[in-house]
């Protein structure tokens, strides 16, 4: 429903603003160009997306995701102190983070939801600190190689589509660190 309102507001603002500023004909042409651009964008990034989901499937089948998940566990015990001894939660949380890092979005969500359901057991509908942390970590982007964005840049003729990687990593780390710090601070005052 939210998207219906957003889309209608976008189109409405464009038509009204176009009429008011005398850009009406440009708006009409924009509608046709935009629809074509949607197809072009999708087709031009399809190859990269398929290549990467292919490579990710190999990673998953040969156990690279599992190995990374085992490596992450000690760190995660400290991030989720309330669940450090709950084997099921720690399994799901570390597999979720490992899948997020590798960009296995389709695998990450069910793992994260499994951890979320387990954390919510017996909570009476109130989010625990661990669950809030899990949600905050999943609303931050942790993907090491953002291939879709690189695909968009490549399609637009970038000289080196992956030259943004250090900037993406830096921004992701800062964003996640601020999210974790905010969650830890707020957990003390917001009961």
């Amino acid at each position, binding site marked *: 429903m939210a998207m219906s309102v957003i889309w209608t507001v976008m189109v409405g603002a464009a038509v009204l603003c176009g009429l008011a500023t005398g850009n009406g004909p440009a708006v009409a042409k924009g509608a046709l160009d*935009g629809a074509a651009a949607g197809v072009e964008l999708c087709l031009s990034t399809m190859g990269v997306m398929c290549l990467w989901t292919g490579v990710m499937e190999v990673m998953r089948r040969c156990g690279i995701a599992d190995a990374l998940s085992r490596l992450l566990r000690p760190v995660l015990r400290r991030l989720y102190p309330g669940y450090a001894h709950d084997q099921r939660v720690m399994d799901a949380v570390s597999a979720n983070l490992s899948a997020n890092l590798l960009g296995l979005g389709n695998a990450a969500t069910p793992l994260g939801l499994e951890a979320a359901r387990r954390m919510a057991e017996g909570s009476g509908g109130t989010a625990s600190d661990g669950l809030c942390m899990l949600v905050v970590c999943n609303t931050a982007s942790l993907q090491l190689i953002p291939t879709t964005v690189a695909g968009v840049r490549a399609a637009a003729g970038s000289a080196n589509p992956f030259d943004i990687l250090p900037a*993406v990593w830096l921004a992701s780390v800062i964003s996640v660190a*601020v999210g974790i710090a*905010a969650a830890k601070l707020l957990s003390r005052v917001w009961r």
Partner: protein
Amino acid sequence: MELFFTMLVPCVMLAVAVTALIRRVDVWGAVTDGARTGLKVSLSIMPPLIGLLTAVYMLRASGALDLLRDLLSPALTAVGIPPETVPLLLVRPVSGSAALGVGAELIQTYGPDSLIGRTAAVMLGSTETTFYTIAVYFGAAKIARTRYAIPAALCADAAGFLAASWAVRLIFGG
């Protein structure tokens, strides 16, 4: 250093394939199965992309985006965010395909290797669809009182946008 980032994807491909072969995994079967999944995902985002890019192109042509940019420009410039990225900041937490559409439009309009194009790309790569994720997680866990999860997640988003702008300026200059 630049060579490292250029060669990262091919090298990851090779390393993964060799690891898989040693572990006797059917590499070719996995690559093609995975690509098939990617094709489905790709096709499933085409309808929303068509709808959203239509709206974004109309907004751009109408002059409404320039108006919005001029309106928020002083505040954003003060904190170091390029004002042209306003539409991306607004849709990023709400819809993933809208953000991809808006970001792609910025990248094409200003050029992928421009300051604005790079900032848009880094913003896309370092943030997530916050409200969608929150709805999915708390919905699945049947949580009604979400406490501080939303404000903390929005702090992370704001930090991501700021850090993306600063990181691009720091690394690429300008």
